[in-house]
């Protein structure tokens, strides 16, 4: 279910709720699956007493992964050609996250058609936690 260039226009926005109430357990799941066992994400005692943060916080890559679901649900499987982000604020247990992809341009290269997207994820306070871009191959 890929996108059709003929039905897309600059400024179109696709949004998705990523998580309602991020749990510490989901962060633990991500640590286990990804292999990033940094205690900053799963060890409340280390993170508060040694590192000096108010609590554990999510891996940036968990936010990028969840935001990636919004993208692949929108552009279709195997269609992404580029996806890049900056992590602009930390994500904490209990956060609710919403992500959006906004059509920036429709381009052609080597006889193929692509959509360029601006990508952003924000928390329940409207604070941007991730800012980036993606490119995906679309049907003409």
């Amino acid at each position: 279910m890929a996108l059709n260039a003929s039905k897309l226009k600059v400024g179109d926005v696709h949004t998705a709720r990523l998580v309602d109430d991020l749990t510490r357990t989901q962060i633990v799941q991500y640590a286990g699956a990804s292999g990033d066992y940094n205690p900053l994400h799963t060890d409340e005692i280390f993170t508060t007493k040694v590192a000096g943060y108010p609590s554990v916080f999510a891996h940036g890559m968990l936010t990028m992964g969840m935001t990636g679901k919004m993208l692949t649900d929108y552009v279709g499987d195997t269609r992404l050609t580029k996806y890049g982000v900056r992590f602009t604020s930390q994500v904490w247990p209990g956060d609710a996250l919403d992500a959006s992809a906004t059509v920036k341009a429709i381009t052609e290269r080597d006889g193929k058609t692509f959509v360029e997207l601006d990508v952003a994820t924000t928390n329940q306070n409207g604070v941007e936690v991730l800012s980036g871009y993606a490119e995906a191959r679309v049907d003409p």
Partner: protein
Amino acid sequence: MAAKKFPVEAGHILLFARSIGDDNPAYMDEEAASKTEAGGIIAPPTFVQSSAQFDPDYFLRPKIGQPWFGSGKNPTGLVRTGGGGGGGGGLHAEQHYEYHRPLRAGDVLTATTLPGKTWEKEGRRSGKLVFSESVTEYRDQNGELVITARGVGVRTERPVEQK
């Protein structure tokens, strides 16, 4: 991240997809995946980050028999010297991927990482920031480039202030 042999396994993809809250059948249901454009189980876009599991020296995984900087009897198992604020070897600032072809269960990747630029910036909420970039090429069993990844890490002078 350097992994000489990173076997992309369906079970690992399932665990990874669950952890990011993605129940796309293309990641976990062989029969459903076989009917998609992918024609079989594929990996989510950020899956290659888990090549850390196959990097023998990955520093954010406890090593058997060695002290670990997370808590046990004490809040940290290590006496830290120097390093940045915030603990844990810095924070992830940016991540970029270019996809050259879909990554499928059954692929065996080799990851080769080259260091990139480093630069400094004065941060408002965490003091001096030292950024360092690395570029990782993921090639398949035939030497074909599958994914190019560029990561930027940042070391902060002190923990990031919370508003």
